[in-house]
């Protein structure tokens, strides 16, 4: 008998998938299922948290030309 389980499907490229798994390592229980190289299934309540964490991690690698002006 097939079963159905509730969750949120995340579609992303492999590098982002690796990052999400990284986040999952530090705060457990986000990822429900690892589907394939571009898909993950995560908990519904954690979607916003994952997005915020991703933003934070990605921001480290951005060069902002306006930074110099502000100082």
């Amino acid at each position: 008998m097939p079963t159905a389980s509730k969750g949120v499907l995340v579609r992303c490229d492999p590098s982002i998938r690796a990052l999400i798994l990284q986040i999952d390592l530090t705060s457990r229980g986000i990822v429900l299922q690892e589907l394939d190289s571009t898909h993950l299934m995560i908990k519904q309540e954690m979607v916003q948290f994952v997005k915020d964490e991703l933003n934070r991690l990605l921001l480290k690698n951005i060069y902002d030309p306006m930074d110099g002006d502000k100082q």
Partner: protein
Amino acid sequence: MASNGFCARYIRYQFSPCITIYIPQIWGSTSHTLTMSGTSFKSTVNEYLEALPDVVQSRIYDAPATCLSIFRLLPSLAKFYVMSMLFSPKPVAIKDLEKWCQPQARRLQYESLKRLRALHLIENDKSGTHVRLHPKFQNNFRDCLTGSQAPNAFGIISTEPENKNVDIKFLDKFASQKWETILHFMVGSELPSVPSKSVLSLLKLGGLMEGPGNSAATLRITNSGFQFLLQDVNIQIWTILLEYLNLTLDLNMDAVDVLNFIFILGSLELGKAYSVTSLSETQLKMLPDLRDYGLVYQRSENSPRFFPTRLATTLTSDSMGLKTPSMVLNQTLQDAESNEAESVDTAHQESQMGQIVLETNFKLYAYTNSPLEIAILNLFVSLKIRFANMVIGQITRESIRKALYNGITADQIIRFLETHAHTQMKQLAVEKLDKKIEFDISHNINTAGGAPQSKSTDSTNAQHRLEILPPNVVDQIKLWQLELDRIQTFDGYLFKDFQNVKEYEVLCNYASEVGVLLWSEKSKLRFFVTADGMTQVADFASRK
């Protein structure tokens, strides 16, 4: 006499969907074009209609004009279903409905039927195997098409001669002046007159502006207000009208009456005068408000006639409402014999629009002093310097992200920059394109990619794109948008633990046919469906 005029008019328009009756099998192949036709403003109107309580919904079908307008707002396949069932006295078997579509169009069919059911246009009969049209809707819409509706269903044309000459040009001017006053007020331009009180409170209720009290001086534009400004006129009007509908409920006005009047306006003829005698009390009360929005023109408060403007008559149609400045510009360029009034208009608009220079280093110079344009630029450019007649700014990742967060898309930004690009940028782009094409022809190659073997000039032309903006900036803006949604998320359910491949395939195929399948993996026998499709797939599984 008046009603006959109307029938002839909409039969001409409305019978065109009938052609599809003879070629129902094409639905499968044209699915992609059909799904694109649903624009956002229509979905908001439809959402509003679908959310109405049943009692109200069945009452709005009393008016033929409403039936016609709702029919116009339906997706094409839904129109086809309505037309096919319209003259059938007996309910139609659901099984027969499914035969009208190819299996690969099952998703379209599912969506159309869902829409029809949500509007209560079709309902199951007692047995549950047959569907029929809503009886009132069926009668009224049939009367519409055959021209036997009540004579005042589409308003009564006033026969008394009007003293003042009210022609289409005058109405267009009136409507755009009224509407632009509202838009300019929103961005805080200094105006000789402010919009009326009712408009101000609507803007506030709709969340487009905010501030203490309702006085004109204290209101400020909100983020959603800025988004509103970037929309098409038609969408803007529907936004305001839906807000107006909500307001009328609080004022104890009959929503059905209000809605009917809005839909009647959508079916009136531009440039004709209509008598107010056929209107109900509620509708009479609406007239001053509609005049404030520029939807109707009345010479004075107690005038027995009103004129619908272009803003009103295009409410439920696909054609454009008032022309956007760039459209006016294009038209006058093509149309050499345009009359004087229009060219004056264009010259005026040219002084405001088409003055943005964008460099490859993301610096932007805008020769403008219009608060509206500067305010819009401020949405996605970090402005640095302002002179009397120009502003200088820089497009940065942060400024674009800020805009994207506010719901503005990269395409909107690029389109805005393209339509407002400085004439010299356009000239340069055209020259560059000509050179490219010339080079290609003389060397018999094609630098634009595509099929190099095609030698005709026409096809070469088609493959080259006119690049008004620096391509690197355009690409970067698009990349920034992509970066924002590095992950796509979908709520739904994962199906797994299937006993065998056959069981998996039956369910998985069904899910993909009705268009709810998001992901599947055959080797591990699992697939993911949308939250909406869950009940459907579960039903199907239990039926098996």
